[in-house]
């Protein structure tokens, strides 16, 4: 199915691209309204973004639909992937777009209804795209600049809550990627029905990276597959199936909640590390691999409170704690015993190891989704830059105020987190505060010179009582540079 053009769809998306993208380029100040494809508007004003002194931000492209990543070819031309799927069960067409220096946009390739396309990387004359695989399972795609699409690996266990993410090319030439978990904390529940996938795949569940022995803890919940009935469900099994103490769950590859790697030809699948929840963003700093892990939500049969996303340096063969630890804290500790909400019990009896201490722990529900390291000349050498998508409250847990919606930097030695690009005025996405700045920074990458930071802004995705409400056509690509001294 890949490598085959879908003429009608291609024509439609091309029209949309011409009509909706690249209308503004290099705009630093002055207001403009961005018309989303559903009629919603987003005001753009780069001057609403606060940066450290000596830095400037401009908009490179707008009108994007659910963009999730940017990469640069050998010429340094920016390419953006559009997801093709957003929470809220909104399906569009996954696309790889070339962003020319004049702001014009060309469609390089399109995908099918198997998004989200989560991130893009450039390697040896082609782009690597992580196809999330919400409908048919995850894949790592190789896309040539002339639009030929092939799959390096497929059938990744990706039809649940979290998808196939990344990828990142290591100094060894291997392709590293993340695979998220099916569930929030190991137990399939009604929350997965609301996400949409439990109805499609009632037998789907998490697969561990190695054999594990269960404690036999089970959870009773409503049964959305048979309304009016109850269901009892254990860990690492399909919905409605209880487990017993001492029960062994076979692990294997591919698995969930893991960083895995393949050779450039797609073969040789290996486990790098596991015990993540949703290792959404990967980046190498020299030969050191860093991963941003989206941590637990306050939802489902086994909710977890006050869990912050973590930045980890990945050690091969290590287990990073999911579903029984939050960073390096066991969920059974009294830290997670909150009024009216007893602490979660451990699901795994034989933890492979005690998880290492993370480099940094971010604000609860800040949703840290993009990471990269600057080159010389940008400043803050050796620090990680992180894009924070922002919270999805109240659907993932309640907050007192918006969290995230900005770019921060992290000192790898101290773990100190500092704002880098943040909206002026009230906290939150620009559309909610009537500003023209950042909406939902979902990814970032320095250009080939390391001196310009491109920030991918997913666009408007409000949360309602009915769930997420993402707005097509409201995504933006920003560029941050350091002014000459």
């Amino acid at each position, binding site marked *: 199915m890949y490598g085959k053009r879908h003429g009608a769809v291609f024509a439609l998306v091309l029209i949309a691209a011409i009509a909706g993208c690249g209308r503004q380029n290099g705009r630093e100040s002055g207001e403009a309204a961005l018309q989303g494809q559903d009629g919603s508007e987003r005001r753009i004003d780069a001057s609403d973004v*606060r940066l*450290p*002194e000596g830095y400037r931000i401009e908009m490179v492209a707008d009108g994007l639909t659910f963009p999730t990543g940017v990469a640069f070819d050998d010429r340094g031309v920016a390419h953006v992937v559009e997801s093709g799927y957003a929470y809220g069960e909104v399906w569009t067409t996954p696309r790889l777009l070339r962003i020319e220096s004049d702001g014009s946009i060309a469609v390089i390739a399109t995908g099918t209804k198997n998004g989200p396309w989560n991130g893009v990387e450039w390697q040896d004359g082609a782009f690597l795209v992580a196809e999330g695989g919400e409908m048919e399972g995850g894949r790592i795609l190789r896309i040539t600049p002339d639009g030929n699409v092939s799959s390096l690996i497929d059938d990744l266990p990706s039809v649940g809550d979290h998808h196939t993410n990344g990828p990142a090319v290591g100094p060894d030439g291997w392709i590293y990627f993340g695979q998220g978990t099916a569930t929030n904390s190991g137990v399939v529940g009604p929350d997965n029905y609301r996400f949409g996938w439990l109805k499609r795949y009632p037998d789907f569940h998490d697969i561990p990276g190695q054999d594990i022995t269960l404690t036999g803890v089970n959870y009773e919940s409503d049964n959305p597959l048979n309304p009016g009935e109850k269901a009892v469900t254990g860990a690492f099994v399909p919905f409605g199936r209880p487990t017993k103490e001492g029960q062994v769950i076979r692990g294997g590859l591919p698995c969930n909640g893991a960083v895995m790697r393949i050779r450039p030809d797609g073969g040789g699948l290996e486990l790098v590390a596991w015990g993540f929840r949703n290792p959404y963003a990967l980046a190498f700093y020299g030969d050191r691999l860093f991963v941003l892990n989206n941590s637990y939500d306050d939802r489902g049969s086994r909710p977890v*409170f*006050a*869990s*912050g996303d973590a930045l980890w340096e990945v050690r091969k063969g290590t287990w990073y704690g999911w579903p029984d630890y939050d960073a390096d804290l066991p969920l059974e500790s*009294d*830290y*997670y*015993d*909150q*009024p009216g909400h007893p602490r979660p019990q451990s699901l795994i009896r034989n933890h492979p190891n005690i998880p290492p*201490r993370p480099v*940094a*722990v*971010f*604000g*609860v*529900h*800040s949703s840290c989704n993009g990471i990269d390291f600057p080159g010389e000349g940008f400043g*803050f050498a050796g620090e990680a830059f992180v894009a924070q998508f922002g919270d999805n409250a109240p659907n993932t*847990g309640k*907050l*007192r*105020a918006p*969290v995230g919606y900005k770019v921060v930097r992290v*000192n790898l030695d*101290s*773990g*100190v*987190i*500092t*704002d*880098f690009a943040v909206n*002026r*005025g*009230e*906290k939150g996405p620009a559309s909610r505060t009537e500003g023209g700045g950042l909406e939902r920074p979902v990814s970032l990458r320095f250009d080939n010179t390391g001196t310009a930071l491109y920030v991918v802004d997913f666009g408007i995705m409000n949360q309602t009582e009915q769930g997420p409400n993402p707005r097509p056509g409201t995504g933006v690509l920003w560029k941050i540079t350091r002014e000459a001294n």
Partner: protein
Amino acid sequence: MVTRATLHTLFLTAVCAAAGLISAQGQNPDSKTAMTETVRLGQRHFMYHCHRCHPQGEVGYGPSLIGHAHSAEEIRQQVRNGHGMMPAFSKDRISEAELDAIIAFILYLHENKEGRESGHE
């Protein structure tokens, strides 16, 4: 009399103020005072233990820590005893030396809370 709830608010307010004031160079250019080594150490421990609920010292999962003066002892009691949704932190989790540094960082933040942009609690 200072209640536990008040202590909780005071502690959180101060912690949030601290983190949020750190500038691009690791220190707010508007700071009245320089960061001592103890304050820097406290900043590191704050990031690990406190930042998740009070990101950059501001309101998030927990309340804002900015804008309320409080004593070192009040902060210490709040951390050790917890309150409401905030857990207690034992000496096994945060040592006395680490807590001393965190308190120094919080007090530093409070001293340097001016200069923040409006809209941040």
